[in-house]
């Protein structure tokens, strides 16, 4: 955690606050070993987010394609 704080130029309490949120969301896992705390990324934890974003984007992309094509057709017919 000390290394993270140094790398990101943030105070330890600030790092702790961010990490606690990430930990609650299941994105990182903290393991204590004596005086040092190791933070690891939880594999696959962002998968649900990525899948939602991909699915939603694809749905709107197809929808807007149909919308644009429809307006092309009706605009030509005027």
């Amino acid at each position, binding site marked *: 955690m000390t290394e993270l704080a140094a790398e990101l130029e943030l105070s330890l309490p600030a790092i702790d606050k961010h990490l606690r949120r990430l930990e609650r969301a*299941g994105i990182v896992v903290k393991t204590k070993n004596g005086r040092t705390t190791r933070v690891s990324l939880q594999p696959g934890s962002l998968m649900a987010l990525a899948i939602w*974003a991909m699915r939603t984007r694809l749905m*709107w992309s197809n929808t*807007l394609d149909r*919308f644009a094509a429809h*307006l092309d057709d*009706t605009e030509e017919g005027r």
Partner: protein
Amino acid sequence: MTTITISRSVHAPPERAYQAWVDPDRLAAWWWPHLPDTTYECDARPGGTYRIDSPTAGIGVEGTFREVEPPRRLLYTWLWSGEGEEDVPDDLVEVTFQPDGTGTLVTVRHTSVEDITKGGAQQGWGEVMDRLAAIE
């Protein structure tokens, strides 16, 4: 909270693009034309509701208009049919129609209010529990 943003330029002025988006008869021509049994209801007024439903495909979407500013902007809630009973907060969809030369730039911002990553965490824990249960 997670948002995706997507834009398209269309060859029609904002007024026509807006009408095609909110008029149920116009909507039927482009929303799900590949699902001919789809029904369209759309009352684009603040507090008005919409509902698009295809019984054969088993999909549908519904919501309530929050903000209606013809022909520039719409803000409405978004709920896929069948998700209501799980007590999930509705998504929010904002559509803007900006003049763009002789046409319109249509931008959709779709926001999920739900903390999607939680689902991932639950899934993660589910797998851990399954592995624990497998230990005798």
